[in-house]
């Protein structure tokens, strides 16, 4: 049996609906026979009648309603059609969900699923990676699973967590990533994973670009360089300890993320390593992000816009030679 990243998301939601009466799914076209824009809820409306609900085309209303339900003791999962559209709901997510516990001591256990990241020809409004934006705000957990196993266990954990969770699942991985079977347990939230061990350079990544980084590491292994690849898994909380321990082994750091370059998760990793682990560094830490422009439609432009194995390899080579 083989299961894709997308199927793992569906399976996790099915398990959640099955195991916990408080869970319901809320989103545009998730119900009925349609099963969502990417079919992440395919068949669930039929299997769990009245618990997979279509909403109006208003992300603001979707999240607002979910917050209300969460305050009444429910565990809602909100599906955005595309991460990009969640910006319409920023007020509900950041100002209401993010601050509620700190203002009232009453938690808001909602999970907002964001189909994130670029795919060929998707353009500026269907390709964004918003983890850096959400991570900037206090009160939110921001998950960025890169593997089939993680997307399954982390989604289950997201619903179990009392804090509001922004769940950034990568659309490119939906069909491309497969696993043999679903795991029964995973690492806890906030713990990074050493995806590949090495001694010459640490690459910190998350979500889809992790796989590009692993490919680069394999390529360099043929030349005798051993690159350690750290999968952050969640950008908030950020597992600084695991990153610092890795840099202590390698002395060199490259951070790769698909979101825009200004500020953000990769900058945060570098800021923490330079301020807490400057003495561990043999070279100035580097990072690669998407370019600081809207995401282009044209496949060639898009390929040049996002970090890819070629740009990562070039940066890694510079770092290794420094």
């Amino acid at each position, binding site marked *: 049996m083989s299961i894709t990243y997308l199927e793992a998301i569906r399976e996790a939601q099915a398990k959640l609906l099955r195991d916990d009466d408080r869970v319901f799914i809320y989103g545009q076209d998730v119900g009925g026979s349609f099963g969502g824009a990417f079919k992440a809820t395919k068949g669930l409306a039929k299997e769990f009648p009245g618990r997979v609900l279509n909403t109006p085309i208003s992300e603001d209303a979707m999240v607002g309603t979910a917050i209300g339900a969460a305050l009444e003791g429910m565990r809602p999962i909100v599906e955005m059609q595309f991460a990009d559209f969640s910006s319409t709901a920023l007020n509900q997510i950041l100002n209401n969900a993010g601050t509620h516990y700190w203002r009232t001591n009453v938690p808001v256990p909602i999970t907002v699923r964001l189909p994130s990241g670029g795919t060929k020809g998707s353009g500026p409004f269907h390709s964004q990676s918003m983890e850096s934006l959400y991570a900037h705000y206090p009160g939110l957990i921001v998950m960025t699973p890169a593997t089939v196993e993680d997307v399954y266990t982390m989604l289950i954990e997201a619903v179990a967590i009392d804090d509001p969770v922004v769940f950034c699942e990568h659309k490119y991985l939906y069909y491309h990533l497969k696993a043999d079977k679903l795991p029964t347990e995973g690492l806890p939230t906030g713990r990074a994973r050493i995806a590949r061990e090495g001694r010459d350079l640490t690459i910190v990544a998350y979500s889809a670009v992790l796989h590009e980084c692993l490919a680069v590491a394999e390529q360099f292994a043929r030349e005798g360089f051993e690159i350690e690849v750290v999968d952050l898994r969640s950008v908030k909380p950020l597992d600084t300890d695991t990153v610092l321990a890795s840099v202590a082994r390698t002395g060199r750091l490259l951070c790769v993320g698909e979101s825009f370059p200004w500020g953000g998760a990769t900058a945060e990793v570098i800021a923490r390593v330079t301020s807490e682990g400057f003495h*561990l560094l043999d070279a100035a830490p580097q990072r690669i992000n998407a370019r600081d422009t809207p995401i282009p439609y044209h496949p060639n432009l898009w390929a040049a816009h996002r970090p890819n194995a070629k740009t990562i390899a070039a940066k890694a080579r510079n770092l290794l030679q420094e």
Partner: protein
Amino acid sequence: MPQVPIIMPQLGESIAEATVVDVKVKSGEEVAADQEIIDVETNKAVMGVTTPCKGKIDKITARVKETYPVGTVLGYVEASEEDAARFGKKPPAQPRDQVEVESRRAAATEMKRDGARASTIGGLPVPVAAKGAGFLSPRVRARMTELQLTSADLAGILGTGAGNRVTIKDLENFLSNIDKQKSTEASAIRAGVADAMRRSWSRPLATIGSSVNLDPVLQDRQSRDPKPGPALYAVRALALALAENPSAAAKLIGGRVVQSNSIDVGVAVEAEDGIMVPIIRAADKTSLVDLTTKYNELVGLARQRRISPDMQAGGIAAVSNFGTFGVEWGTPIPLPDQTLLLGLGVGKKVPSWSEEKNGFTPKTEAQITLSFDHRSLDGGRAGRLLKRVIEFLENPSKL
């Protein structure tokens, strides 16, 4: 009358700009062709800017002490129609020239970068990317700090990193090799001397030497009470020579030449496992006898290692009498906060040709050396200072 521009010329390869130091003409003055009218200084030399043609100075727009890039118009000459046609009466086409200046500036910046000097972006200085043998990564530095190592301690390591950088692996290998050898803890005074010498050695130091006839000094000291040693004659001679010309001991700090208010001269004294250099304040105003008393006190304290740091601070030069070890010649290192160090070798009887007697006569000769920071002064200046010291030593009645 048409005007011909006077342009900052290309003064040599790699020179992008020059500073005006003197303007020798005034508006309205008649000038010949190729007449030097403006002196400009680059980091290499002072050079003259000449007139493009015969005529009358219309105006000089350049100002003294201002720096202008190559190609800048510094002024105009009113010239005949004929000359104006030949030398281009129109001011140079601005945009193209501007581009040229920019590209020259960029080239100069690029060159500085190669020379590992600060380059600029948008006119602001930026540090050059650190690579190569001199670069120590934060990790290597942190390890060095932990072990109290300095970069001088790493001199013996052949770096295996990029551009022969010393990597952490090189450092650890070096340290593990050291662990295999016998070692003891260095004394505080040894560590202090090491630190001072290491700091001093970061400068370009040079040494010059000459011989000096010590007989006059040896004779003179018999007549004094208490009897000063040759080193004190040297201290006094150096102090008087510097009093005549105090800028010879000036320190160069950044772009400033810093000169002390007082001729304070140190004397190197050997102490157990190191040296101390107590300072004699205002040595030019202290008689040789007072100098001797003061010196004997200081030597007593130095031998007991009871010279406090402030008694060793603030000197402008020092004397090292390595002749007491029977050494003829040396290249002593000036103290890190001083520019000069005078070294005196052992006196030896040598035959000396005497024109008067038309034969050889015995003479007590010693070698005297002057080590100096070549940033602050050059061989000529140092040589004249040394000659003046020798003159004093050979005429000790003046001391």
